């Protein structure tokens, strides 16, 4: 029965995926100007070369045929060749994606690790100085531009104090053979703890920059839903059973308060994925989000198009999983 639900949700996903592909396709197609001319730009080129490029990109076809060709190619992972990197776009993405995922996962861990305990505490001590400070700090957190906060961190801890590396993922001398491309994971898999420690050192500031604003937001959600839950009758009834305070707060309170938090956390991965463009730029993190920005400056449209599509697909996927998780932790949703 549960499997049926998964299938049903997957079916609902198809129109959204189709729409996402269409929007990404239109982004390039509806843009005024001939992409070929823009791409060739200042380079001296003959009309024959331009025609060849146009044919290569399928631009001679009518738009709807181009769209279906685009989807067909996308399904097989063929996004064309990157002009700047001079190799298939899919290779560039496969190389850069793990760095973005690693950063996103660590940032999310930091965000949840700070937000949930602080949100619970603020809700339990509602109106106390701790609640007020936490609320103020979280408001400051969402008001802080991430790129500025990152630069200030670099200026203080890397440039002036020299405690932290300015940029990069790991020291060149400590690189490990690639398994997943996520260095924290790969180094542990190889038993290289020195590399792990160095990678952790590198990822700390970018992940904090990305995670803090997110945790400010999640804290507010956790606090609000925890306050709501603590006023419910079932908390009073559970307390009347004489169970311990920790169990009361975690099993009866948090378990129910987490339901909205998970939903918001999934929605806010969009914030993390977008914020990656900023953080990867500021911290010289060789991830996919930065490649998209670079692709824009090098007019590498196939790469930009594919990069935006891949990130949107990840985002849709995360929300899909969160939706399933939501049905699992919330038994009231009819299965």
């Amino acid at each position, binding site marked *: 029965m549960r499997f049926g639900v998964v299938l049903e949700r997957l079916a609902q996903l198809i*129109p*959204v995926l189709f*729409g*996402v592909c*269409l*929007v*990404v396709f239109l*982004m*390039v197609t509806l*843009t*005024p100007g001939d992409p070929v001319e823009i791409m060739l730009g200042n380079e001296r080129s003959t009309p024959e070369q331009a025609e060849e490029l146009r044919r290569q990109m399928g631009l001679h076809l009518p738009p709807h045929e181009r769209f279906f060709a685009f989807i067909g190619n996308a399904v097989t992972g063929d996004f064309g060749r990157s002009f700047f990197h001079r190799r298939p776009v899919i290779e560039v993405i496969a190389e850069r994606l793990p760095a973005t995922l690693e950063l996103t996962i660590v940032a999310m861990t930091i965000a949840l690790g700070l937000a949930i305990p602080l949100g619970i505490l603020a809700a339990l001590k*509602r*109106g106390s100085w701790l*609640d*007020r400070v936490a*609320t103020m700090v979280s*408001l*400051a957190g*969402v*008001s*802080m*531009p*991430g*790129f*500025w*906060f990152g*630069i*200030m961190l*670099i*200026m203080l801890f890397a*440039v002036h104090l020299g405690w932290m590396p300015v940029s990069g993922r790991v020291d060149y001398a400590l690189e490990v053979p690639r398994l997943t491309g996520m260095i924290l994971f790969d180094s542990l898999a190889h038993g290289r703890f020195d590399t792990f420690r160095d990678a952790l050192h590198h990822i700390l500031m970018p992940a904090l920059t990305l995670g803090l604003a997110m945790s400010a937001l999640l804290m507010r959600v956790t*606090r*609000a839903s925890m*306050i*709501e839950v603590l006023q419910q009758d079932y908390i009073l009834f559970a307390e009347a059973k004489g169970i311990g305070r920790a169990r009361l707060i975690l099993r009866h309170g948090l378990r129910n308060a987490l339901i909205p938090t998970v939903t918001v956390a999934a929605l806010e*991965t*969009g*914030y*993390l*994925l*977008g*914020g990656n*463009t*900023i953080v990867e*730029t*500021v911290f010289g993190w060789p991830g996919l*989000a930065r490649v*998209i*920005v670079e*692709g*824009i*400056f090098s007019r590498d*449209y196939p790469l*930009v*198009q594919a990069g*935006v599509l891949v*990130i*949107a697909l990840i*985002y*849709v996927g995360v929300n899909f999983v969160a939706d399933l998780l939501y049905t699992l932790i919330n038994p009231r949703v009819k299965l």
Partner: protein
Amino acid sequence: MTVRALDNAGAESILAINLRRFGRDRFAAMAGAIAIGFVVMAAFAPWLAPHDPSDSDLLRRLQPPAWIEGGDWAFPLGCDSLGRDLLSRIVHGARVSLMVGVAVVLLAAAVGTAAGLAAGFLRGAVDAVISRVVDVLLGFPYLIFAIGLMGMMGPGIENIVLALVYKEWTIACRVIRGETLAARELDYVEAARAAGASPAHIMFREILPNILSPLLVVATTRMATIIILEASLSFLGLGVQPPMASWGSMVADGRSYMLEAWWISAFPGIAIFLLVLSINLASQGLRDAFDPRYRP
């Protein structure tokens, strides 16, 4: 029609009561005043700024703020790598932030309100189409979507506004759709419908006035987010182009001088932070005044 007269009076007074409650929250009112201060600063930038923001002088290159040795009170916050006065550039930069913020929020609210009212009130095929489009747009992380669009459309302040509005309207649309779905079940809407009012009349004259409060809260919160998004795009070099001063691009300019001239990045960032924080505080005050359940 008495039903309408009564209910409009009711709706206005709810908004008025809420706003008065907001006024009593001194902290939030102060934040609102600071935000308005920024608006005044932007409006009168040419008269308030001590210098021309693009007036460069290489003799003043990387000149520190006035209170640091080598500074000069004529250039209180110091100068950038081209010797331009930072304070004047920040004062002028407020124009870009606020112009984009206001334009995006207004345009998105207009489009989103129309779409949300239509979807929530007319239901059926209209709702299905609008909701699908919203679902698809929600499938994109905001900044990635804007970056993609800016990459295709090219830089410039109008393009920033467009790139953000293309996604922003979905937020107002969802709020309004939800409120409309709730409102159309209410007695006064039923009464108006029974009295033979047209759908357009009911949507704009009956329902809209009653959902102004949530719309106002959403609009202020979104304004804060949009100002950060504009700054982020400009920071990445996809926003306004030089010599126009934008806070985001000013922070980016300072990155190359982190070691010797921290102020170039620091001050524009503080300006963003202050403006966004004051908007957020005011917005929180509005929310508390409208819905006091979660007040600390």
